[in-house]
Each structure stands twice: as structure tokens, then as C-alpha cells.
């Protein structure tokens, strides 16, 4: 995994890592909420979601700009964008499951 990430260009590597970190934070918060049923975890989750959305949106724009300027190979840009967008269905799924418990 590390070798693969090192192969990516810097901005793409950072994008993938940030997406991974925000996914891990969301998953942790979601699991804590499901396990404890403690409502403040919902607010924390929304905060993480908002922050992740802002960061990933900025990274998305950077990756797109780099791709259109021709600095990044097609598959690498596609993979990075995919990882950034993959966040959306995961967030929707977590929110849907969490709302079932409320």
C-alpha cells in the first residue's frame, strides 16, 4: 500500500491519504455511536462530515485542475477522484444506518 501511494503524485497521494483519514474518523465515530447509542456522537459525526466534505472538495478541484492541465496520467487522476467521491455513498450509508437508531 505504501509503495503504491509513493508511486502517486504528491497532490494525489495527499488526497488519497486525507480521504482515508476522514473515512477512518467517520467509521470510528459511527461504530462508537452504534455501540454506545450516545447521541453527541451524531454531532461529532456531522462535524467530521462537514470538515471532510470541505477538504475533499478542495482536493477534488486540485486533482481535476491538474488532470486538465495534463500533469497527471488519466488512470491516476481517475483513481484519486474515485476515492474522493467514494466518500459520498459511505457517508450516506452511515447516516442512514445511524438515523435508524435515533
Amino acid at each position, binding site marked *: 500500500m505504501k509503495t*503504491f501511494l509513493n*508511486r502517486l503524485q504528491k497532490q494525489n497521494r495527499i488526497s488519497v491519504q486525507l480521504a482515508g483519514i476522514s473515512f477512518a474518523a467517520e467509521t470510528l465515530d459511527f461504530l462508537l455511536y452504534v455501540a454506545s447509542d450516545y447521541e453527541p456522537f451524531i454531532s461529532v459525526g456531522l462535524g467530521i462530515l462537514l470538515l471532510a466534505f470541505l477538504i475533499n472538495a478542495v482536493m477534488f478541484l486540485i486533482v481535476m485542475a491538474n488532470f*486538465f492541465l*495534463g*500533469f*497527471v*496520467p*488519466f*488512470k*491516476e487522476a*481517475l*483513481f484519486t477522484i*474515485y476515492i474522493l467521491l*467514494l466518500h459520498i455513498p459511505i457517508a450516506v450509508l452511515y447516516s442512514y444506518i445511524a438515523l*435508524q437508531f435515533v
Partner: protein
Amino acid sequence: MKKTIIITVGGLLFASLFYTQSLGINALLYSTFLMVALAISRKEILLKSSIIFSGIAMLSSAVAISVHGSAWSIAAYFLSTLMYIGYVASYRSSIYVSWLNGFYNAVFGIFHSFFYQLEPPKIGEPKKKIATGQVIKLIGIPSVLVVVFTVLYRSSNPVFQKALTAIDFSFIDMLWIFTAVLGAFIMANIHDPQPIKEVTARDQNYPNQLVPNALNDLQLKSVANESQIGFISILCLNILLCLVLITEILFLTSITDLEARILSDAVHQGVYASIVSIVLALGVIAFIFRGDVNFLKNNQKLRTLTYIWIGLNALLVVSICIKNYIYIQDHGLTHKRIGVMVYLFLTIIGLFTTYLKVTHRLNFVYLLRRNMAVGYVIIAIYALINWSAIITDHNIKADKIDQSYLESLLPQNALVLKEQGLYDLYSQQKSGYRYYSDPYNEAIFINRNWQEFNWIAHQLGLDHEDLPQ
């Protein structure tokens, strides 16, 4: 070309079958298409036993979805589909690796060649850079020009304006197109499944047998000490379990005098605690026999004690089974009570595989492989059966009716309720039970498209048609 056709058909079929539809016969049709598509791209491994087995499991769970559509059948369907894709990627891998490979292909399959650098990156080729810009210009500039001039001509020519107004694009459903693109993407991911090479190779080369190590005197002493600790620990645990079993027998013999509440506590708390203790016991045995202790020459006593402990744990399982059976006899069937029985069956199999592990000097990976495979098979078979209908039928015949519980099992038990003349009352769900899923809505359940075909809904629909108007 073949690849493009498969991906395109896959996308169109996905949207046609699943867009705004509930799960029904569409799952079966899509699975059949998936099997045909993968058979086209991987003819050579089609008749491998793991692929045949996982294919049958996928199709049968899809049939279960269109017959009763329980939550378990849906879970088994997704598990089986991932397993099938995983086995097509690598048919000799363990079941958990096949799930991992299936998930990897479903989500990242299209990027496999990129991960493993199977094709060189195309950066820095001036032709491509120009081509991208050129494509944007080719599409963008004429589009802008056409829109601007259309607006101008529309204002100047009433006939042209009328013709433009007559054009109706309302039949284009953007969400349908999005679903088709998503379906095509999924198909592009899984049309030629590839394994995660490192994990799969490691799994395939990992044997089930333990290998003896050459030990020096110091290491031999350490292993002997470990064996001694294991012997004393298992001896103590055997004595403790004997005492527990004696109290279990006393409890079971006095059960006729106990109140329902005490029996309920004994089953609900006792069963879970006992199951956890058995799982822990398996862990302790797996830990003690994880390595060189297996090859000590004088470990026969430790082995015998371990076999006794496995036997005593099996007796504990039997006692839990009896308690659960008595509870079912007194209070009727529920999903949880059936779940306990399934759990106990799995535990017995776990004890048996642990016995085999100790006897044949097998490693922990063997336990993981066998127990996961057996666990999956049990879940897959469990999911085929409409338990809600069986529970309802049993409880009504045994006169253990809990209206709110039977209501919560709708729609899977609708035909049984209808047969017993309780459907009209129960389908209104007025008992005040708090449902975790959406309450049953007969109109939505019966009025289904062909893609959502469900046997129970079909039968209910036929009954409605037969009613005098």
C-alpha cells in the same frame, strides 16, 4: 469489443432491473447475467468446484429473495455474490480471501492494472494533452454556438419556435442514466475479476499443518513450561466446568417449578454467557496448541485433558440447547430462539474442528478456514428458509400467539396468517409494537413491477383478485 458489449449490456440491464425497484426476481436475473458474463470472460475455470458451489449459492439466495425476501436472504445474496466474484478471481483461495477479492473487484476492479502497473502510465505524451484540450474545444465551442444561434433563430422565426417547443425530452430520466452508468461501472469492475496478488498468494501457500521447529534445550524447556501451564490451566477449567455442569443438571431438573421470568433470564443471560465461555474455551485451546507444544513427546496427558474439556463444553452446549428447547415449548418460536439453536450448532462444529486441530496438529488458519466456511454454509442454508412463516405457523398451532411479534414478521408470514384467517386483522398493525423497520404497507407490497416479483406478494395479489367486488 466483447468487453465493451458486456459492460454496456450490464449497465443497461442494471438500470432496467434495479432503478426505483425493490429486490425481487431482478436479483435472480442479474445474477444469471453475471454468471453468463463471467463465463464468457473466464471459460477455462468455469467448472471448478468452488465456482460452481458459490454460483449455486448466489442463485439460490436470489431465488429466496424472490420467494420470501427476508433480510437474511438479502444478506446471504450479497455475501454469495462477493464470494462468487472472489472465486472467479482466484478459485483456490480460502473463503474469507474470496470475500476480500470479491469486494476488491466490486469496488476497485477497474484500477487493478493501475495498482499493479500492468500498463505504463501515459504522462508527458504531448499528443494526449493536445487531444484532451482538442476534445473539449470540439465539444464546447460548437455547443455554445448552436445554443446561441438557436436562441436567436427562435426569436426571429415563429415556425422554428413552434417546432422547438414541440420537442419533448421529458422521457429522458437523468437518474435512470446515472443508474445505468453506475451499473456499467460495476460491470467494468467485475467483468474480469483479478485477485489481490499478495494476499491470495500468501493464503494459497499457507498450509493447514503445523510444522515442527528444531529446538535447542532452552527453547525445549520453555515449551515444556508452557505445556505445564496449559495442563494446570485446563485441569482447573475442567474441574470448574464439571461443577458448572452439575449445577446445570440441578437447574434443568428443577425447571418445572421455575417461573417463566427465571427461565427467561436463564435462557437470555445464561445462553449468551455460556456461548461466550465456549468461544473463549476454543480460543484458549487454539492458543495452547498454537505451536511447538503439539510436538512434545510427553504431551499425551495435556491432549487427553483437552479432549475432556472439549467434551464437557459439548455437554454445556447440550444443556443450553435443552433450556432453549424448554423455553420454545413454553413460549413459542422466535427468530432469536432459532438463532440460539443455529449458534449452538455452529459451536458444536467449532468444538469438533478444534478437536481435529489438536488431533492432527493443525494450525489456527485451519480453524479460521473451516469454521468460516461452515458458518457461511449454515447462514446460506438458513437464509433459504422462510423462518417467519414457520414461526407463525408453529406459534399459532401451539397457541402461543403474541400478536405484536407476529405483526412484526409481516410480510414474510402473510400467507400463513391468511391461511389462519388472521391476516386482515394483523396487517393493520394496531398492536402498538415499535417496529425497527418500516411498518408493513399492503398496497406497496402487493403493487409491484415485474422486476420486483415476490412469491408472497403474487399470492396475496391473486387472493385480492379473487375477492368479490
